[in-house]
C-alpha cells in the first residue's frame, strides 16, 4: 500500500496523461461509432437486399473476430492503403470505431424493433409522414431502450481502448507499462491503473442507472 502511494505521488502525471488518452479515444470512438451505428442500423432495415447483406456481413465480421485482431489489421493495412501519412493512434482509433459501430448498430436496431408494431401502424394510419412517424413516435420510444445500452457500450469502449497499449499508444494501460519499466513494481503500478478504470466505470454505470430511472419515470 505504501509503495502504491509513493508510486502515485511520483508518477501520477503519467497516469493522468494516460487517462486523458483513454478518455479522448473513447469519446471519439463512441461519437463517430454512434453515427456509424445509426447508419448501419438503417442499412440493416433497408428495403434493398444488397445493402442489408453488406451491413450484415460487416456486423458478422466484427462480432466473429477478436477486437485485438481488428486493431492489428487496421494498424497494418490502413497506412498501406491511404495516400497520406497516418499515425498509429489514428489507425487504432479507426479500428476501435469500426468495432464499436457494429455493436452500436445492433443496439439501435434492437431498440427500434422493440417498439411495438402497432405504434408504426397507428402512426401511419393517422397519415403522419414517414419521417414524423420515425422522429415523433418510434424514436422517442426506442431511445428508452437505446440510451442505457449505449452508455454500457461506452463503458465497454473505455475498457476496449486498453488494447491500444499493445501498440504503445498513450492510454492508461500504456501508462502502467511505462511506470512498470521504470520501477519494476509491476503489481503496484498495475493496481493504480486498475483503480482508475474502476473509479471511472463505476461512476459511469451509476450515471447510467440514474438515467434509466429518469427515462422510466416519464412513462407514467
Amino acid at each position, binding site marked *: 500500500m505504501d509503495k502504491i502511494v509513493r508510486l502515485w505521488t511520483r508518477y501520477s502525471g503519467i497516469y493522468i496523461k494516460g487517462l486523458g488518452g483513454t478518455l479522448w479515444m473513447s469519446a471519439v470512438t463512441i461519437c463517430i461509432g454512434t453515427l456509424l451505428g445509426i447508419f448501419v442500423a438503417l442499412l440493416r432495415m433497408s428495403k434493398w437486399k444488397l445493402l442489408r447483406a453488406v451491413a450484415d456481413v460487416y456486423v458478422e465480421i466484427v462480432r466473429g473476430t477478436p477486437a485485438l485482431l481488428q486493431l492489428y489489421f487496421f494498424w497494418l493495412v490502413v497506412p498501406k492503403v491511404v495516400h497520406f501519412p497516418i499515425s498509429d493512434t489514428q489507425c487504432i482509433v479507426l479500428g476501435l470505431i469500426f468495432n464499436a459501430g457494429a455493436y452500436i448498430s445492433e443496439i439501435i436496431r434492437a431498440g427500434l424493433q422493440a417498439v411495438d408494431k402497432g405504434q408504426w401502424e397507428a402512426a401511419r*394510419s*393517422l*397519415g*403522419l*409522414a414517414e419521417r414524423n412517424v420515425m422522429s415523433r413516435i418510434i424514436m422517442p*420510444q426506442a431511445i428508452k431502450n437505446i440510451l442505457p445500452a449505449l452508455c454500457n457500450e461506452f463503458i465497454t469502449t473505455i475498457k476496449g481502448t486498453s488494447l491500444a497499449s499493445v501498440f504503445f499508444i498513450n492510454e492508461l494501460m500504456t501508462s502502467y507499462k511505462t511506470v512498470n519499466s521504470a520501477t519494476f513494481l509491476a503489481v503496484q503500478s498495475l493496481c493504480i491503473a486498475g483503480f482508475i478504470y474502476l473509479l471511472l466505470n463505476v461512476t459511469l454505470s451509476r450515471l447510467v442507472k440514474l438515467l434509466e430511472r429518469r427515462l422510466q419515470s416519464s412513462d407514467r
Partner: protein
Amino acid sequence: MTDEIIRTEDLCKSFGKLEVLKGISTSIRRGEVVSIIGPSGGGKSTFLRCLNLLEVPTSGKVFFEGTEITARKEKINLYRQKIGMVFQSFNVFPHLTVLDNITLTPILEKKIPKAQAEREAMELLERVGLTEKAGEYPGRLSGGQKQRLAIVRALAMQPDVMLFDEPTSALDPEMVKGVLEVIAGLARSGMTIVIVTHEMGFAREVSDRVLFICDGIIKEEGPPEAIFTMPRDPATIRFLSMVL
C-alpha cells in the same frame, strides 16, 4: 354518380403462399355503416387493412373518393389522413399525454395552430368522457379509456370514413359497452363506418349492411335483418349457428 367513398376491385392479398384475400369487390357509400363478420383467419382484418394500405394488396385496386390509391403510393399519407382507423390493441402513444396523442397529427400534418387543435381535442375528450384525463399519460388509463382515446385521436383528423378493427375484442367485458356506445353515436351522427366485429348484436343494431367474409371472399352480404334471420350461404348459416 353514386356517392361512394371506398371501392375495391378484385382485391387479392397473399402472405407468401397463403392466399388470404381471393378477390373482393365491393363499394361503401358515404354515411353507410358496414359491419364485417366471419370466422377468424377468413380475411376480415386483412381486407380492412387493405383499405388504407397498411397491407399492400398483391393485386386488385382500392379507390378512395374516386382516386385509385393503390396506384400512387407516394402520397398515401394524405389519403390516410381522411381514413381514420381504430385497432384491437388500441395503439395509443405511451410517451405522449392524452391531449398530445390527439393533437400531434393535426398540428404536424394539417398545420392547425396548437391552441385550436387543443380546443378541438378537449371537445372530443368531452364527448367520450375523458376530459379530466387530458394531462395524463395513457399508462394511467383503463383499456376502455385507451380505446376511446384512440377513437377521438382518429376523429381529430376529421376523417371521411372510420375503420374499426375488432375494437372491443381486447377489452374486459365491462368496458365493451362504453366503447360500443361511442361507435354507435358516431354512426348516428352520419359517419361512414366499416367495422370488423364479433359483437353480433351490435352489428345487427347499427349496420346498414353486413358483409360475411370467409375463405378470402364475400360469401354473403345484405341488410342485417336478412343476414341474421335468413342467411342463405351454408358457410354463413354454420358461422351464425355457432356464434348466436
